Every structure is written in C-alpha cells, then in structure tokens.
C-alpha cells in the first residue's frame, strides 16, 4: 500500500471497527451473562441448603412431638403431618412447605426422610428451591440419638438405687429396674412438680371387680390395692403410698408413679405393654411369682394425656449428632 494512496478505505475501516467492537461487546455480554448465571445458581444452592437446614431445625423443634412408633428399621419413611396434625412417618415423600407450615409467600420446602438403626434414627433433610424453572436440591444428613431404647422415652424416678432392696423373686427384676432408673436422675424439684400437679388429679374410682381404666389421670393419697383383673390403658396413675397389683392386672401405654412400695402378688402374666412403673421414696421392692421374659419397656408419650407434658419436657433427653451436608 502506498502512503499517498487516495483509495477510499473508510468503509473497510468502519466495518473492521464494527467487527472488533461487536466482538468486545459480545464478550462482555457473555461474561455478564455467565456471571448472572453463576450468581443465580449460587443463590439457588444456598437457598436450597437453608431449606434443608430448616428441615433439621424443624426436626429439632419437634423431637418430642414426633411419633416414632411408625418408623421401621427396614424402609426409609418420610415425616409428615397426618390427618390429626400429628407428626408421623409414612410413605411416599412428603414435603413441608408454606401450606402445611402456615407461611405466606414463602419458598421454604423440605422433606425429612428417616430410618431406625438400633439406638439412633438416621435422618436426611432434603431442601428444594426453584430457580429459572430448575429444581435445586440439597441434602443434610443427621442422626437423632435417644437415651431410651426404641425411642419410647421411658424413664424411672427414684432417689437412689442403693436404697432399694429386692426380695425373693423380685431379684429377677434387678437388672431391668436398675436399667430404668439409670436413665435419668431428676432432681427433687422435678419430683415435687409432678407431685404438686398430681394434687389436682381425681381419685381412682373403683366400681367393680373388673375395671378397665382408659385415659385416666388419677391420684390416690393412700395405699392402693388393685383388683386382679383391672386394666389400665393410656393412663397416668399416681399413688402416694404403696401399690399392690395382681398377676392379671394389665397395663398398656401407662405411667404408674408410686411414692412408696410396689407390691405384686404374682407378677402380671398379662404383661406390661409399653408402660413404666416409677417408684420413688421406697426402701423395699416386693415381688412374687414369675417375671415374664417378654416384658415390654417404654412408653409412648404421644398417646398420653397432655397434663404430663410439663414434667415430661424436663426429663427427656435427645441429641442431634453427626450433622453433615451431602450433595
């Protein structure tokens, strides 16, 4: 090309400049668009994570309200509100969201999957978040550990296990009784609260020789001798004295609190199903008869009357452990 060339190159230069400018602006667009996508994705990931974390917090807040009895050690099940608004485990996957959590315009959404493994329950909280039509999910794994076998929340109250003398065949009950009593040692104030609460309870009304008490909350201020075939279901009985029961007295899902001696004339052959005896302030534990091998220990607090909640909350211990985030 000559320096004194008079040919018109303007159009070529303009077109060249346009191409260069287009490439630069295009690059900027691409970078910005990529940045927007990255930030948007990052936001969705974090919100999905906090939705999963909300599931952990939800479980934490409801530990004592969850009905664990529907959980098995063979299948994963999902926590859900049932028709009675109780928290139970079931299939298929159930999502907690603004509808069942009573939240307006919230994007919170999580599910809680669990399986029972021996003394722990393994939970996976899955948080979901919608971003640009795409569902982002994050998982948090955690374990729930209880100091009760089978999460049945059993406990026993007594001052000091050394004060108890087991006589005769009652010695067969030694291990069971001590295992129960080692679970929790509530202080004297807790016991007094329970006793004060019980002052408002009505007395047990015995109407015949074969009574079935269902959903009874009662207290007697003296020794109580039950009929041989009395049956207690979903009940709390406080005996401010000695309790004598017969071999066929049935207990199902009940608390029996004794501020004295428990005397059993033949240990219940009908079984103590999901029930616990509390003995307190006792020096002697009398038993006679055979002690069944298949005695079930524990109690389902979810089916007990609400009056016991005040005391229950002080005595139960749950721990969340092994929190970890999974992709």
């Amino acid at each position: 090309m000559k320096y004194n060339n008079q040919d018109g190159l303007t159009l070529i230069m303009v077109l060249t400049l346009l191409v260069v400018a287009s490439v630069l602006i295009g690059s900027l667009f691409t970078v910005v668009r990529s940045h927007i996508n990255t930030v948007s994705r990052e936001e969705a990931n974090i919100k999905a994570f906090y939705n999963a974390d909300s599931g952990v917090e939800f479980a934490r807040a409801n530990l004592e309200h969850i009905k664990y009895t529907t959980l098995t050690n063979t299948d994963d099940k999902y926590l859900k509100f049932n028709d009675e608004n109780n928290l139970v485990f079931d299939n298929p996957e159930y999502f907690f969201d603004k509808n069942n959590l009573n939240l307006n315009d919230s994007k919170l959404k999580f599910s809680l999957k669990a399986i029972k493994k021996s003394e722990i329950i393994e939970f996976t909280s899955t948080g979901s978040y919608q971003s640009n039509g795409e569902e982002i999910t994050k998982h948090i794994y955690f374990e729930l550990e209880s100091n009760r076998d089978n999460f049945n929340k059993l406990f026993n109250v007594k001052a000091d296990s050394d004060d108890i003398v087991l006589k005769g065949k009652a010695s067969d009950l030694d291990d069971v009784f001590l295992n129960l009593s080692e679970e929790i040692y509530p202080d004297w104030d807790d016991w007094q609260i329970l006793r004060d609460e019980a002052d408002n309870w009505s007395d047990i009304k015995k109407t015949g020789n074969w009574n079935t008490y269902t959903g009874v909350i009662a207290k007697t201020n003296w020794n109580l001798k039950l009929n041989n075939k009395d049956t207690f279901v979903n009940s709390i009985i406080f005996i401010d004295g000695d309790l004598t029961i017969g071999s066929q007295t049935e207990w199902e899902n009940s608390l029996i609190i004794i501020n004295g001696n428990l005397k059993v004339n033949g240990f219940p052959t009908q079984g103590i199903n999901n029930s616990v005896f509390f003995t307190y302030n006792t020096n002697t534990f009398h038993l006679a008869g055979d002690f069944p091998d298949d005695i079930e220990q524990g109690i389902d607090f979810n089916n007990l009357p609400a009056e016991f909640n005040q005391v229950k909350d002080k005595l139960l211990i749950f721990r969340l452990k092994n929190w970890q985030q999974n992709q």
Partner: protein
Amino acid sequence: MNIYQKDGFSLIEIIISLTIIVILVAGFSTALVGSLKSEKQLNEQHKARRITNSIIENLKTEKYRTRLNDSNIAWDEDEYNLSEYNINFKANVDNNTDIVINIEEKDISDNLYFVEITWKNINYSSEILLSGD
C-alpha cells in the same frame, strides 16, 4: 461496489459510516452501561448473601437462639464484623436500618420460629426455620 475506485463517494461514505457508528455506539454504550449496572447489582447481591448467611449463622448460636421469643431481642452491633451495617430486629427498625430481621413464632411447634432477613436497599431476602433452646 469497487472499494478501490477513486470516485468521490468518501463524504457520503463517511456520513453513512458516522450514522452507523453513532447508532451502534449508542446501542453498545447502553449495553455496556447495562452490563456494568448488572455487575454492580450482582456484586451487591453477592455481598448481601454473604452478610445474610453470616447473620443466619449468628442467629443459630446460643446467644440468639435462646432469645428468639424475646420481644426485646436486639442485634449486637459490635460483634461478628458486621458493624458497617445497621441490623435491626423488626420491632426496632428505623430509617437507618439496612437489614431487617423478622421473627415469627409458629404454632405448629412449641419452639419453632420462622426467620426472614430482608435488605431494605438491595433486592435480596432469605428465610429459614430456627428452633429455640
């Protein structure tokens, strides 16, 4: 068109070129300004998210968790390197507030709270459930 021709079309070419350039520069500059604005917003959102996450993690500490149902709960400005922002719980919001923390107790549990953190000057908010102690 022969681009090596010596006919006098330079003026027309320049005028047309200038017109095209003006239109394109106007379009490009608008795009450029828009992109830079987007970048600025993204940076603000990124910062807001980082600060919000920090606030959430602080709320999960015992110091705040035990007071989630306290109507007089207040943010401790001197802690957690967040002092450059005016952070207030909803009951104490004023004109200088940058970040509002709203706590609602949920009746589906004894001890569950819905927490929403909203930035007043940036379009960003985050929500989470927290349990008290």
